[in-house]
């Protein structure tokens, strides 16, 4: 059987591609697809057929997997995903319908076989909704495929890091299974899937939800001394501090945060072994701190991590005074290390993903995803910051009359878990070769990095 004509399929794909967010965002305003086809490789010759189309537009390369079937079979194959249709094609005089192959279960299963070079087979597949530049597929609830829509030149950083760490024996990650590469680009990544694992953010939200349940106010008379509303917890024990409430609440996360801290320490040691180390350069941090203070003032975020004695300016000066030799070692960073990037599995914490979305990466001004070296405390600061983000999210669900008590509880919760994270991190065997030995220096750097993180987050929210 002959193959479809690539240019014909490309022309057919135009309106479909225009509707895809990943295509719109990356390709700019150019609507014309002429000269865009880079390759059209038939992967399955027969019915249903499957081809891989690479096209370029706006300086980006895109992958579209195209399937085709007899018209009478398409409805069953797509099962409600008719919006994946591209249109009619003709092969050897016969009419067929072409569509985005990711919508077809049977072709997805074939794709797994192809991507793993015949080593993996599956009986079932489901699509996981994704807003970013890849399609996510789960096979048999044990394998996960990221099929890249936006393709990058060279080696994909996520894949590079995963396979290097795996080869070193670092097992606190979703183990890579296969890498699909053709024409010198990475097309898909297959890794293990842990169905019972839970995103760190959900675990944190649940923990805080239970703590904030103590903030509920009822119809009790107000407290005699202050006249403040009497909370559920205060009905139980009037002298309890927010920290004590957090400690006694169900779902206390402290032990989990310590374990996560140790996992993070192990990750950093493995990254150091995999990609080498160098001195930490704090100049960038100092300059950015100065710039941020100048632009938006020195107000401290109450959910931020701060050295007890510090003002922001004092912190900046303290970091400036640090000799480079005291600032620890720089490693290749994770880059976007937060509670959505880690999962709690039945075997402990695992790192679920690495920063690798060319459309949503923090380095949006830099189209190449080159590795970034930095102090490991940057990653840790990111994780600390994400605790505050979760706290703010949980607070947003509480009614206004609880605000003060709930905020006190959320702050205490954030402080406790942050301290546990740092404790676990610093207890990692061998971490002293990466981080400063002086606890005050660690605190100062952590504060500085977290401050920068806060300001960038605020800027991103404000659309700056």
């Amino acid at each position, binding site marked *: 059987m002959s193959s479809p004509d690539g240019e014909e399929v490309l022309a057919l794909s135009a309106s479909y591609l225009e509707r895809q967010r990943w295509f719109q965002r990356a390709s700019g305003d150019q609507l014309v697809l002429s000269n865009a086809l880079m390759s059209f490789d038939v992967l399955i010759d027969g019915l249903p057929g499957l081809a891989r189309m690479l096209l370029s537009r706006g300086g980006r390369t895109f992958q579209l997997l195209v399937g085709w079937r007899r018209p009478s079979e398409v409805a069953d194959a797509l099962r409600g995903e008719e919006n994946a249709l591209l249109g009619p094609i003709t092969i050897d005089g016969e009419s067929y319908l072409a569509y985005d192959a990711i919508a077809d279960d049977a072709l997805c299963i074939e794709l797994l076989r192809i991507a793993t070079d015949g080593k993996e087979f599956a009986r079932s597949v489901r699509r996981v909704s994704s807003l970013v530049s890849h399609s996510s597929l789960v096979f048999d609830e044990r394998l996960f495929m990221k099929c890249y829509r936006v393709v990058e030149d060279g080696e994909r950083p996520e894949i590079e890091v995963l396979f290097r760490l795996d080869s070193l024996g670092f097992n606190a990650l979703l183990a890579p299974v296969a890498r699909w590469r053709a024409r010198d680009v990475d097309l898909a990544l297959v890794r293990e899937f842990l169905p019972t694992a839970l995103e760190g953010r*959900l675990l944190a939200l649940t923990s805080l939800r239970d703590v904030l349940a103590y903030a509920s106010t009822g119809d009790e008379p107000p407290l005699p001394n202050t006249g403040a509303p009497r909370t559920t917890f205060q009905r139980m024990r009037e002298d309890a501090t927010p920290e004590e409430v957090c400690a006694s609440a*169900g*779902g206390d996360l402290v*032990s989990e945060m*310590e374990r996560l801290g140790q996992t993070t320490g192990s990750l950093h040691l493995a990254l150091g072994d995999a990609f080498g180390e160098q001195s930490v350069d704090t100049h960038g941090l100092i300059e950015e701190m100065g710039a941020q203070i100048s632009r938006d003032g020195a107000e401290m975020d109450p959910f931020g991590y701060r050295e007890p004695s510090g003002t922001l300016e004092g912190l900046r000066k303290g970091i400036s005074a640090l000799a480079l030799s005291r600032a620890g070692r720089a490693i290749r960073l994770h880059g976007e290390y937060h509670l959505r990037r880690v999962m*709690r599995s039945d075997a*402990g914490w695992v790192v679920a993903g690495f920063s690798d979305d060319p459309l949503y990466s923090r380095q949006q001004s830099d189209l190449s995803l080159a590795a970034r070296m930095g102090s490991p405390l940057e990653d840790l600061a990111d994780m600390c910051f994400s605790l505050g983000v979760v706290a703010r999210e949980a607070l947003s669900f509480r009614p206004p009359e609880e605000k003060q008590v709930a905020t006190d509880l959320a702050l205490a919760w954030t402080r406790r878990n942050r301290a546990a994270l740092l404790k676990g991190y610093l207890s990692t065997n061998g971490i002293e070769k990466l981080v400063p030995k002086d606890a005050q220096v660690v605190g100062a750097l952590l504060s500085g990095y977290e401050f920068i993180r806060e300001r960038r987050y605020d800027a991103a929210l404000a659309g700056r």
Partner: protein
Amino acid sequence: MSPPDEAHLFLYHPSATSRDLYVPGTGKSDPTSDREAKFQRRLDPDEHWYEKAVFYELLPRGYSDSNGDGIGDIQGIIEKLDYLAWLGADCLWLLPFYPSPLRDGGYDVSDLFSVAPECGDVTDVARLVESAHARGIRVISDLVINHTSNEHPWFKESRSSRDNEKADWYVWSDDDQRWSDIRVIFCDTEPSNWTWDPVRQQYYWHRFYYHQPDLNYENPAVREAIMSAMRFWLDVGLDGFRLDAAAYLFQRDGTQGENLPETHAFLRGLRAEVERHFPGRVLLAEVNQWPTDVVDYFGDGDECNMCFHFPLMPRMFMAVRREQRFPITEILAQTPTLPDGCQWGIFLRNHDELTLEMVTEDERDYMYAEYAVDPRMRKNLGIRRRLAPLVENDRRLAELLHALLLSLPGAPVLYYGDEILMGDNIYLGDRDTVRTPMQWTPDRNGGFSSADFAQLFLPPLMDPVYGFQARNVEADLRDTSSFLHWLHRLLEVRRQYPLFATGDLYVLPADNPSVLAFVRSDIDAQTGSTRTVLCVNNLSRFAQSAELALTRWEGTRPIELVGRSTFPPITTAGYGVTLSPRGFFWLELETRA
């Protein structure tokens, strides 16, 4: 003392529905049967009966005193067999009833071939077995194989000189330096595993108390003596043994003196003897190790039939305290598959401290902080409290823990008194905290004994919350809303579904970490169809919801097992469940053929 009025004790309350009159093997209830038929059950003829059995651990000296001497006895247990049959026990596990100076609750045995006089005699044991079997209940007892009391005639002879016939029956040394790296188990009280004997002028080895010298298993005569003890009691009729301290039998330089190949070889020898002459009996090993080490005690199905799953137990308590499922799912993920015919013994509490040996130091500190605030509650590396005080008398939490116990893979082992949420007495020494007399009635001494209070082997509980006036079997039998009735009903339900005992386990993803959901399934031997039960547990003290991925069972209608109500059908969308605080559901997912 005449036997208690059983017609009074086992009151048939009209509002207790005919479901209470379950007749095994028929799948039906019989509301018209009389009291005798009501409790008629038959011994499970399956050679692997222990896989499906519900075990009930009891302390003979603390269960029921039939002769008014203040100490429970075998006859007293016989008189309670109808109650145990009604409750749903399939096998009794008797703590040691052998002669003993009682410096370790009877685990310091001074004669392996007889019964302590205060408990009865060998004939009583035979009658107990016969009476229990008539009610479909089996009986096993502890067999203390690692050590004896220092008042055992064997030890007395061994220590008397260095060249007598039993000189080599224990482990002697001129100094206490050998095996110095081997951990001390009773670290609260014993500074060393060696103790100096002034008579023999040598040190002797003991992994437990100094008055419990370890037998020397290198000596074939010792191995044969233990084998003889086992044969003796199996001839009397016992259905098997819990092998106490089974991991420590041998020692070897450069090891931890645990789980040695020689130990396994001996246990396989015991098993072979049982299979040859006493088929259908069970060997249940007490081995407090990680699952990957414990699994060796099953051999290839040719060593012990059962082992306790120690690490699961503290993690159940941890999970409900942290209100997260990961402590449980983590240890389940590390639990290996067993050879055919083997089974885990799972439990919430027992006669010992709630052991925290198989958790990390941080986890141990956490458990102490949460469950043993008072230092008196701590013992060795554990917590000496009963279930009800551990959960602060929270009925819903007690129910949830029992629901987990009865639905997770393994044969559940209930501890006497937990069915009425008995309390404990932390002011008693050692582990007597959790070994107070069973509370039968609100009458004198809790109905345990007619003796004077001062004669009782241990004082019964008398506080306003857990005291026998407030908490006893008689009151709970009259109250059909009691925990006792609840547990009886749940055991009945469990018995109808063998998959709880031997089925596969599959943990389901749930987006709520406070919800533990898993599926148990097996193939129905009669119909050939797959039976599946979904167990959903809310570990939180607050109401929770979760969405479960049940598309594999699309189209089925879940049926809740206790009330038999039908839940919404399963579709391709996520299946939402809402649970009350500490609530749980058992839902059958497959339509019966």
